């Protein structure tokens, strides 16, 4: 029997498969047994009650969807009083995603979310449709450092930091987050995108820009995970285009300790369970006793450098 558990700092996940924030809620218990997931990731919460963005909030595109939801929610007080208890009914650790437009408020929210039933605080400093000086701090090294330092000073909970794929140099931003006290890096949020309708010449989304969600993103995010894993010591959660067990394996080989799944759960509501079962089967078939052995196990040190020799190898 394969051991699927992975450790992220002091937190143990029973398997490396978690939902991605925004693509999940406790309401999925209607269709899958939430106690089988690696973790539970709540939708990003803000201090104030928010209606979110105008509709349409989603448009299909080649390879997936673009979406701009606008962080709707009932605010932090309601969240702690009513939504945290919904998640507390289940065993996997609760990861609470949080966003704000100011560093001071990010820090205050970290303190207010440091309640017993919250296991991890995930700083969503990368909402793609927020301004880079007003909440999308992961676009800049300096803002990232300042925000995570401020949050770190206000909470002892494990602090995960969700990075942006839209930043120019994600590696230095990852390093800044680590230096500022992050316990884990979540790579990454969605790609800022635009779709224009050719029938009426209007942007397809009510909010104009949206985040691209697609299996096609996997090679790009995988590259980011790989690059960041080479320079940081803290664990990484890879998010982008995971639809099957082999994708989890790929992310782990690149250096991730766990993955987040969004798109696949939209396509198949039971996808996370399928991926967990297939991952166990994949390990069993190869005699892998602990899935954690895969973390960073990519074989990139002994690559053939001579093109003549490489081209003569069997394929």
């Amino acid at each position, binding site marked *: 029997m394969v051991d699927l558990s992975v450790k992220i700092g002091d937190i143990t996940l029973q398997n490396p498969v978690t939902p991605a924030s*925004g*693509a*999940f*809620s406790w*309401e*999925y218990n*209607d*269709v*899958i*047994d939430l106690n089988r997931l690696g973790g539970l990731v709540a*939708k990003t919460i803000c201090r104030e009650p928010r*209606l*979110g963005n105008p*509709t*349409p*909030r*989603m448009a*299909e*595109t*080649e*390879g*997936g*969807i673009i*979406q701009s*939801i606008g962080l*709707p929610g009932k605010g932090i007080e309601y969240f702690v009083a009513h939504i945290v208890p919904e998640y507390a009914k289940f065993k996997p650790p609760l990861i609470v995603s949080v966003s704000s437009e100011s560093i001071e408020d990010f820090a205050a929210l970290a303190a207010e979310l440091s309640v017993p039933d919250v296991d991890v605080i995930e700083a969503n400093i990368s909402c793609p449709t927020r301004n880079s000086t007003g909440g999308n701090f992961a676009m800049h090294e300096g803002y990232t450092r300042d925000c995570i330092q401020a949050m770190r000073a206000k909470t002892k909970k494990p602090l995960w930091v969700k990075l942006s794929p839209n930043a120019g140099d994600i590696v230095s931003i990852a390093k800044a987050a680590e230096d500022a006290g992050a316990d884990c890096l979540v790579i990454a949020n969605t790609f800022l995108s635009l779709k224009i309708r050719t029938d009426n010449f209007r942007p397809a989304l009510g909010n104009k820009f949206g985040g691209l969600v697609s299996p096609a993103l996997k090679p790009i995010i995988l590259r980011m995970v790989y690059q960041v894993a080479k320079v940081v010591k803290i664990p990484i959660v890879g998010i982008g285009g995971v*639809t*099957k*067990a*082999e994708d989890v394996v790929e992310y782990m080989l690149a250096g991730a300790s766990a993955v987040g799944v969004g798109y*696949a*759960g*939209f*396509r*198949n*509501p*039971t*996808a996370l*369970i*399928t*991926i967990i*079962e*297939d991952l166990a*089967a*994949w390990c069993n*078939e*190869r005699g892998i006793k602990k899935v954690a052995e895969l973390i960073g196990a990519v074989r990139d040190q002994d690559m053939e450098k001579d093109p003549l020799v490489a081209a003569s190898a069997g394929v």
Partner: protein
Amino acid sequence: MPSEPKGKYTNSALRAGDQDPYPQRLVGEFIGTVVSNRSVNDEYKHLILDVHEHALNAYAGQMFHLLCPSPDDEEVWMRRPMSVYRVDRQAGQVEFLYKVEGRGTRGIATLAPGDDFNLAGPLGVGFKLQQGWNNIVVLGRGVGLATLAPLSQLAAERGIGVTAILSARNPAVVMSKELFEGLGARTITVVDSDGSSAIENVEKIIEALIAEGKADAFFTCGSNRLLKLMQRLGKKHNIPGQVAMEQIMVCGFGACYVCMRTFEVDGQRVLRRVCRDGPVFNMQEAVGW
């Protein structure tokens, strides 16, 4: 040899007869088998699927989220929500009546008997019939009538009389008349081609039903114009009502907040999720579209 990756990653979806590893589920991901998929007229088709017994819990107004095959060389990336047209518990079948219109429904139209079809559901809050209602009025247009049709089944089971006003462009595309009538509903057809579907005429028909005492509650789907009419008459005569709404939808479980519609509750405008708070809502609170 290690096994090859499974093509469609649906090994947690249930086929008819499968044992359910999570029997307390309210919602399932199912692989139905197409029994038939026939054209009803030039625009509409009727799909019948053999499904796992859990899917048979669907009631009037609830939806399934359909993973549509592609009608062309491009993928259909997201599911399409569709209200259930009929549940045949004896036969173990669910049925859908759909207008072949967008890429999703054009994809469904390609299904042939024996094909697999992945559907998740039943989703959402459907129609509710209250104690004390003896006669209801159902008013729908186009494919909205497919959503309203199972109400006649529900009402018939409760001994509630149904008058169904069926609105369409022309007599050839009036939907579900036989289904409504087969379950004992009285039907009144109004069409654009002879002008009988004009709002003033439909208003007269409904006013007459109210005068006869045949309108304890209103139900509608498929037309903003007809919704506004029923809201006005409902307010005037203090008759409660329910409306089934649709919206672009992603997850179906209330998680993603894509499928929002505006409602007015106690003078306040609020957003609600069609997938989980609906698709059937209090008619007077709906703002329309």
